[in-house]
């Protein structure tokens, strides 16, 4: 589905996931080197890093696949 004739909704979804994923990944990496004084439960699993990374990868995939001008819907 194209919006405005050129940009797919999935591209917007990709941008959103990519930016959020990178921000979460960055926050997770920061916490890895500067552990908080009151960590969340299961902090040792470092969910921010793998969840943020997963979102960023997914977002990057969507951005590339549905980039404006590639003709995909």
């Amino acid at each position, binding site marked *: *589905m194209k*919006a*405005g*004739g050129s*940009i797919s*909704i999935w591209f*917007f*979804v990709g*941008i*959103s*996931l990519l*930016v*959020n994923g990178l*921000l*979460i*990944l*960055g*926050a*997770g990496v*920061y*916490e890895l080197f500067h552990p*908080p004084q009151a*960590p*969340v*439960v*299961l*902090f040792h*699993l470092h*969910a*921010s890093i793998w*969840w*943020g990374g997963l*979102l960023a990868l997914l977002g990057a995939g969507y951005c590339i696949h549905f980039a404006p001008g590639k003709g995909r*819907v």
Partner: protein
Amino acid sequence: MTAALAFLNVPRLVHLSAVDLVIIVFYFAMVLAIGFYLKERANTGEDFFMAGREMTAWIAGLSFLSANLGSLELMGWAGASYQYGILAAHWYWIGAIPAMLFLALVMMPFYYISKTHSVPGYLKLRFGESSRALSSICFAFMTVLMSGINMYSMALVLKIILGWNINVSIWVSSLTVAIYVSLGGLRSAIFNEVLQFILIWGGALLIPILGLVEAGGWSGLKARIAVNASAEYTHMWSTMGHFKDNPMGIHWTGIVFGLAAVISTGYWTTDFLVVQRVLAAKDLRAAKMAPIIGATFKMFVPFIVILPGLLGIALLPMKLMPEAQAVATGGHSYNEVLPLMLARYCGPGLLGLGITALIAGFMSGMAGNVSAFTTVWTYDIYRALIKKDASDRHYVSMGRWSTLGGVIISIGTAYLVIHFKSIMDYVQALFSFFIAPLFATVILGMLWKRASPAGGFWGLLAGTGSSVGMWAWVKLDPTALRYVALSPYARDMAENMYRALWSCLLCAFVTVAVSLATRPKPDAELTGLVYGLTAIPHEEHVSIFHRPAFWAAVVGVVFVALNIIFW
């Protein structure tokens, strides 16, 4: 500046870091950008109100589900699962899946082929102007009322969780919705709903994953719940033989005949808030596939809503309580279970995404209400009753202004609720007054060509009137519950189920009786509207994997399996 500091210094459940705020601000920027981007594609009535009828099945299906997946839905049902256990999942499985499949396979062809722009619009074509007027006025009234009440509830939630000022939450969130819907119309609402749907899953999915890790898997979770509450909290059907045997105080007949057969089917097939998304599909096959795609995801929503509630029973160190008790004692209410679980596992960044998911849920629900209100107001009230022969451009302009008007009325309702909180006790009942009888009217109209215009109108009026009457009877004389809900032990939810069932049956009875005594419409006027007089395209030429019926069967099998697994 002082106000901003005061705004940040209110007691709160969680504290946001800078990265969390960046994520939330980025979300608002994104939805507004989509609205501005789509403005150029909303110049005609078909574009503004029906999104050009060019949505793919996936987009229409995700939007169909997202419009229903408001934040109150997320938080309320997570709280309900803490209170009632896995019984709350009935509202996601038997209380949704059969109805969505029924819409896809049985009702969608009539809606789509008739090319109606709304459910009241279908009633106009099928029964005439009086039925449309009754249904559209009721719908418009209830939609803005619901929208305002949701707005107030969400602002209250943001105040409790984040300490945000109620006025700021109400105005910022609702004006954002008003801007992007009035700019891009239904297309903007749908595109944002898809984005919001993805964000809701991205923000909420981590809670059950980490919760199950902490609890030691499903078996560990069940063992902890058996200790902290009762083993019955993890069974869906085995405790429903009697009203007294389960925490919800409901009998299986109420769930099957009241919830599944009437309330849920009525909601998913005739509430224009959700049906509007499917009407925007690009062709009939996409329109039939959209509810099936929605049903597929709906089956798994309990993973991000019901499971966190159950995990709360098993893992939270404190006992949650009813709202009034929580306010009196300073404790936490059932409805706070989702944010409490969010705060338990989510550090900076993840917390921002989780809060964004809640805000996205609120905004998708509100945009659904507002865009549906705008269409019904413009086409079914303004054009039908006030100004019949204006240009398409005039109606688009009216659509934009009524979007703003709908939001402003909703804001007014939100402030009304602040001063008269008892309104909230009545609104769910108010909403159910109309939906259950409407289902009987629409389904008889679609499947029985003998149903006459007079039958449709008087049936709808009798059904709605009887529902209001039963509700008032129980309010005035609580002992009447034994007649309305078949048991003095029945609770509010059970009463809603049975009241819906009786009003639906009465509507059907009156519709049939009046129809048999009055003149039906000639067949020529019913072509494309009624079973037997509508040419439904055959699908023999497409492969089985492209047939909606095949995928509906797959969803049906998974649905049955889930109910057996969690019996």
